[in-house]
């Protein structure tokens, strides 16, 4: 949502001035065609000119985010202004700067206004590589710089390729109704659903598992259930409102929504305990793995939680409470109180929502959780060596036995985690393996797919399991 929000307020990204290359950078004809024409014109006197292609199209989703485009555009335009150039924003997301080269032997800038390497167009690629290193770790992939005198054909070929592609819609426009005001409306609407009886349709459960090591022997199943997490599916709630991606995109609005949903979750579980219904967390008995519930600090400090803890004691339930890292940082005093409440109730604390970037920026283990859930990112196997070492050091400090690799939705996630010594996983890839095992053992599985089996396992109320 942040992306869409920013798009809504972004200044119109069209060139109005005429650059040294004699054409408007964007306008009728499309930027790709105008780039091609400008490249051909530049070929008449290529000496002292250069081209820089900023490959924003190479950023993995959700990139390039609007702020990537906005800041990149500002930097390129500033450079163009200083070096008699112009900027082209292409349909695939790439940006191209055509400009004069910095004179040789110019002294380095003396003022920090030039800190972003605006004094030398050739240095812009290094600047952008530094800014984008989280989103595109390989600095060589961020930009290509061509001297027009030596590499004009390369630029012309690149522009021709973009022209050829330009008939295709490569960067989908932001969907309507995704601005900040609409996000607030969506969050309000989901909160309203949470107050109604149909909210149970959106409850889901997911297993966390332990991958058995080789010494366990062949007779032991490879995945041992560790816990079952109960939550509301935000994706399903968004789908209900045809507002995919809007509720969870603004982290602050989402935290507010999480509190509203938590209150409902605690009330529903408390009301159902001991009834034998689908939401009766006591029905499956003490032999089942512990239950994980993710709560906001406000929910942990509410009367509803006191009631919930009483039920856990009454039925002898093993429960762990997950708290998002951002919650802990939002109100340290409340986090301290909540930790005290959990300790008094004998409930372990699980720190959730820890990205690998959080491991680079902070030491979340200093918050002393019993378990830490690290979010999987496809970037993890490709980190630069320094960052890879930092992540490895952080995992060693925390202890692999206290880490769950969360959102392990792909085989790559499991492979990376196991290579780091992690054995605890939660995610859709785990769900698929478990479902495959169930299908093999189930006498009624004829015609079932893995996906169907996963959906049935995730559903909490019978209506979803049908």
């Amino acid at each position, binding site marked *: 949502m*942040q992306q869409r*929000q*920013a798009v809504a*307020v*972004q*200044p119109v990204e069209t060139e109005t001035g005429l650059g040294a290359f004699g054409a408007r950078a964007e306008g009728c004809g499309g930027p790709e065609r105008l780039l091609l024409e400008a490249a051909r014109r530049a070929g008449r006197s290529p000496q002292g000119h250069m081209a820089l292609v900023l490959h924003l199209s190479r950023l993995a989703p959700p990139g390039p*985010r609007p*702020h*990537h485009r*906005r*800041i990149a555009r*500002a930097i390129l335009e500033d450079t163009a202004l200083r070096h008699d150039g112009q900027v082209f924003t292409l349909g695939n997301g790439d940006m191209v700067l055509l400009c004069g080269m910095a004179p040789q032997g110019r002294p380095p800038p003396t*003022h*920090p*206004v030039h*800190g*972003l390497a605006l004094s030398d167009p050739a240095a812009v690629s290094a*600047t952008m590589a*530094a*800014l*984008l290193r*989280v*989103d595109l770790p390989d600095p060589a992939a961020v930009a290509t710089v061509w001297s027009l005198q030596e590499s004009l054909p390369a630029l012309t070929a690149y522009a021709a390729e973009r022209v050829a592609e330009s008939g295709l819609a490569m960067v989908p426009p932001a969907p309507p109704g995704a601005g*900040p*005001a609409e996000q*607030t*409306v969506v*969050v*309000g609407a989901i*909160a309203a659903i949470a107050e109604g009886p149909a909210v149970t349709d959106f409850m889901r459960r997911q297993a966390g598992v332990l991958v058995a090591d080789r010494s366990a022997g062949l007779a032991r199943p490879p995945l041992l259930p560790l816990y079952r997490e109960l939550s509301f599916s935000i994706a399903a709630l968004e789908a209900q409102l045809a507002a995919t991606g809007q509720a969870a995109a*603004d*982290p*602050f*609005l*989402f*935290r*507010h929504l999480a*509190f509203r949903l938590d209150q409902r979750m605690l009330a529903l579980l408390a009301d159902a305990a001991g009834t034998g219904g689908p939401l009766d967390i006591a029905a499956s008995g003490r032999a089942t793995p512990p239950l994980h519930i993710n709560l906001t600090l406000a929910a942990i400090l509410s009367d509803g939680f006191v009631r919930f803890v009483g039920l856990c004691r009454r039925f002898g339930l093993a429960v762990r409470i997950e708290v998002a*890292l*951002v919650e802990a*940082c*939002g*109100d*340290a*005093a409340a*986090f*301290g109180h909540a930790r005290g409440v959990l300790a008094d109730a004998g409930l372990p604390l699980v720190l959730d929502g820890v*990205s690998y*970037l*959080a491991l*680079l*920026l*902070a*030491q*979340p*283990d*200093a*918050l002393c959780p019993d378990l830490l859930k690290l979010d999987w990112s496809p970037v993890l196997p490709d980190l630069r060596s320094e960052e890879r070492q930092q992540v490895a050091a952080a995992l060693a400090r925390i202890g692999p036995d206290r880490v769950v690799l969360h959102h392990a939705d792909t085989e790559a996630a499991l492979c990376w985690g196991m290579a780091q010594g992690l054995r605890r996983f939660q995610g859709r890839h785990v769900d698929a393996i478990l479902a495959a095992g169930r299908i093999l053992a189930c006498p009624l599985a004829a015609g079932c797919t893995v996906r169907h089996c996963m959906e049935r396992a995730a559903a909490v109320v019978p209506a979803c399991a049908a």
Partner: protein
Amino acid sequence: MSSLAQRGPSEEAQEMHADAERLRTLVRGCVTAGIARQALLLRLSRLPEDLKRPHHLRLARSALDPLSFADRARMFRLPNDDVVMVWRGDAPEALRTSLDTVLHLFADTGERVPEPDALLHALRLPEDAGTLLQAVEESLLPLEDVDPGKAAPVGIAPTDPLDPPALAALEAALVQADVARFMRRRQIAERLPEGRFRLLWEKRALSVAEIAATLVPDRAIRAEPWLFRRLTRTLDRRMLALLAAPQELRDAGPFGLNLNVASILSPEFLRFDNALPLVLRGQVVIDLLLADVVADPAAFMFARDFARGRGYLLLLRGVTADLLDAFPLRRIGLDLLQLRFSPELARLDAGRMLPDADHVVLSRADTGTALAWGRRHGINLYQGLAAVPTGPRG
């Protein structure tokens, strides 16, 4: 003061109006002739009614007695019960004693009393003439004409929390609202070896409490902390737009801003950055909140490197004693850390070394106790009523 107390109500009111006129004349004279004076504005009108009884006011006024011995000291009682003391030259000890006494008076009254920096303003003339003249004008207004955001007794707090529809309405109202008058400044000062404080930069911020009291007086604006955080983004953009206005920063000295990560990456910031005078480049401090950093670390790292490349200094706030170990300043890659003084912070093990103490700003340094704690931990940068700068800007 004592003679005033013995007069009749109407005579006393006349004398207060006369005081307001005298203060206005004095302030204008300082501006016209460039005369330097120090001033302390004690906004007793902001107290809730049950703390504004005659004996409360009398005690609060007498707390300023130490300042009455300063050179050319004059006290002015304004018609709305606000008090202004004006004097010549530096009187740091007397000022600190007076501030400590006032805060001590209301120490046990909890949240019903306004924040210290809403109750007490240490000012300098002629620079802060506008603030004093505004206080005079407010004090002369009939009660019903006073801006409710400023006149509402702090003790009567709205109880309905902000919810998404109210937030959306407030954000829409903010687009058109004139928020310039809600701009407030706080001074960050460096403690010099001789004990004086030197101004380093002024933090500029919109008073959210006053804006909310004006636009949504029936809502408790901070009761839903995450919706409040979201609201600050909208306010950031208004603030940046204000600062980007022509001439706004022409005579500005070094200053600081609270901003969200998303705001640094907004079109409004780019316009502000373009409007920033060259002389201020490298002189602007951006304060970032820890929760905002953690909420979107990728955007934070991008914004951090971009802002630093443009010459901004970056400060991390929202870190408490409990979070110090989890969020080392150097690891986050920011320049300064703001710690808010509190009883909890004061209980931090005295023998424990504060990491990067020379990069720490101790805020809410309103008392001698806070200063002493800061000194003990090697802190030199302060914001608060006990750290009023008296010398030339650093």
